[in-house]
């Protein structure tokens, strides 16, 4: 700034003489730089949003139109219909799938949040041998590839008659995310001053009382972050229900149903688009309305350097 305005003060050159060449080229470069920044940012916005827009537009086009022309033609010759949604609901049982997705994701979210809070509380606010080793084990378990657990768990669920039931998915999803959850809440809990817990203990509060009246309310923000992340994961997961729900009486969750439509022949592209929209609408609303909490979860969950 100082550089660009300096000619007009102090040394004030005669009006007809141009600004020093160095300053002029600097200003010019800066202006070009700003323009390039805007172009790149807008390019990212376009490339990242256009696919979503294409899906929404396609889901309201007729099967014939979808086969004949790209979705952007809908802006030239608009012809929209809700028929795809109606068909998707009736023919491919989207309503039941929506129910199964909710029955998987809601309990998995509540249980993960509660159990992670309990684990983090014990790990940070109680002194015992093996505490450090346990923390390190959590960090290691956080990156376990799920594939490593599938074969034995299939046998386990078979043996316990849990195979093909939704509670089997809760068990798996909660157990798999608890290391991350404990790690995330732990980071937040350590920032709460120890005196708060001490004074509660002096007042005669039990640990259970401390959990319900200090830990849970104070950790509400980080627990909200954890809940959002777990909800998105449980809702969006394909591999887990594909393997543990199998071909059973339970209606498939949305991800499995929609993925199955791709390989199944005969189902129209238009229905697939409508079904896909139904499968993403709740997660999209969640992330848009609670972006702040999501960001906190992402930043708190990263093992920082």
């Amino acid at each position: 700034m100082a550089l660009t305005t300096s000619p007009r003060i102090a040394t004030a050159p005669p009006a007809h003489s141009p600004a020093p060449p160095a300053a002029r080229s600097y200003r010019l470069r800066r202006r070009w730089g700003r323009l390039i920044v805007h172009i790149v940012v807008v390019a990212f916005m376009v490339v990242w949003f256009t696919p979503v827009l294409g899906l929404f537009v396609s889901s309201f086009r007729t099967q014939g139109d979808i086969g004949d022309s790209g979705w952007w033609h809908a802006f030239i010759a608009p012809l929209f219909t809700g028929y795809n949604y109606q068909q998707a609901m009736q023919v491919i049982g989207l309503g039941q799938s929506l129910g199964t997705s909710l029955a998987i994701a809601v309990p998995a979210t509540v249980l993960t949040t509660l159990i992670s809070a309990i684990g983090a509380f014990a790990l940070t606010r109680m002194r015992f041998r093996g505490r450090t080793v346990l923390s390190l084990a959590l960090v290691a378990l956080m990156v376990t590839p799920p594939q490593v657990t599938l074969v034995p768990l299939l046998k386990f669920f078979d043996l316990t008659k849990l195979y093909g039931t939704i509670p089997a998915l809760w068990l798996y999803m909660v157990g798999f995310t608890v290391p991350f959850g404990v790690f995330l809440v732990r980071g937040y809990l350590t920032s709460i001053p120890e005196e708060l817990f001490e004074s509660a203990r002096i007042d005669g509060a039990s640990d259970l009382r401390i959990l319900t009246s200090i830990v849970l309310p104070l950790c509400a923000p980080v627990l909200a972050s954890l809940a959002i992340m777990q909800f998105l994961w449980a809702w969006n997961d394909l591999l887990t229900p594909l393997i543990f729900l199998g071909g059973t009486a339970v209606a498939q969750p949305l991800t499995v149903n929609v993925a199955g439509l791709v390989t199944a022949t005969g189902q129209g592209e238009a229905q697939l688009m409508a079904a896909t929209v139904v499968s993403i609408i709740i997660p999209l609303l969640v992330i848009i309305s609670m972006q702040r909490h999501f960001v906190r979860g992402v930043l708190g969950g990263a093992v920082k350097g």
Partner: protein
Amino acid sequence: MNAMMTSVPALIAIGAVVIPLLVYALLGVGERMLQLVGGRAARYIRPWFWLIVPLGLMAVVLVYPMAETVISAFRDAQGRSWAGGTNFGWAFSGEMLGILGNNLIWLIVFPLGTLLLAVIVAVLFDKVRYERFAMTLVVLPTAISFAAGSIIWRQIYEYQPAGSAQTGLLNALWTLIPGTKPLAWLQTPTINNFCLIFVGVWSSLGVAALILSAAVKAVPAELVEAARLDGAGEWRVFRSVTLPHIGGAVLVVITTEMIFALKIFDIIYVMTNGNFGTNTIANRMYFELFSSQNLGRASAIAVVLLVVAIPIMIINIRQFRAERIR
């Protein structure tokens, strides 16, 4: 009982209300008993009692299966007798080599591609006033399942023979260039791997960008100003001031995305189902598990994944310890 296990409201009530209450009751009863025991014994037992539920879950879902997978990798297809190293011999020969090669491409291109774009997003978005809105658009795909994301991109990569109207956005744009013919993006080997990887990048960029963006904003503003006053250009400021300060965040992004690349399944399952030379380890494992029902081979593949993940576990542990000492 059966009807209850398939009724959505009943399941939600059980999972989100009844089980949490049971956990609470368990803690209450335990605390009461610990009070009766009292003294040093209670102090010794209490933490472990509180950890029963979280540790028990981890033991059942993660630790015990991991150990058993390692054992069954050395046993035959049905797990009846020892098979020595034959499953691993198979895992590193024949068609598996191409699959491992694909995973290697994912393991290198995906994290580096995501990192490069995330750094650009973090640094350049910081310079515009509409940053929040722009970031929301980039974060949006994070909420979309890989299955749905793959369906979205399958439509973009769609191919129609030359001469007919292109219904896929990419080919419609591509054929605007004079002299080009429409490409079958998902069916052409090598190109298709990169097309699949880009779907992953599209889905994951949001999280990587959020992490790097926070790191970029944490770079002391005085340092940046001082460098500018010394006449450093924007590129020089980035290289000498910003980059050294965001090293930790870069490592986080790289390790996170490597784990993601390692276990990539959904995108391939939906878009090509492993055909046209795009198969990966996790997809092959699913095939071995359900189509071939070869538990030995499926386990051996899983162990390969675990072994590749171990260095990343170690990096994370070291970072975690360094963070605690500071």
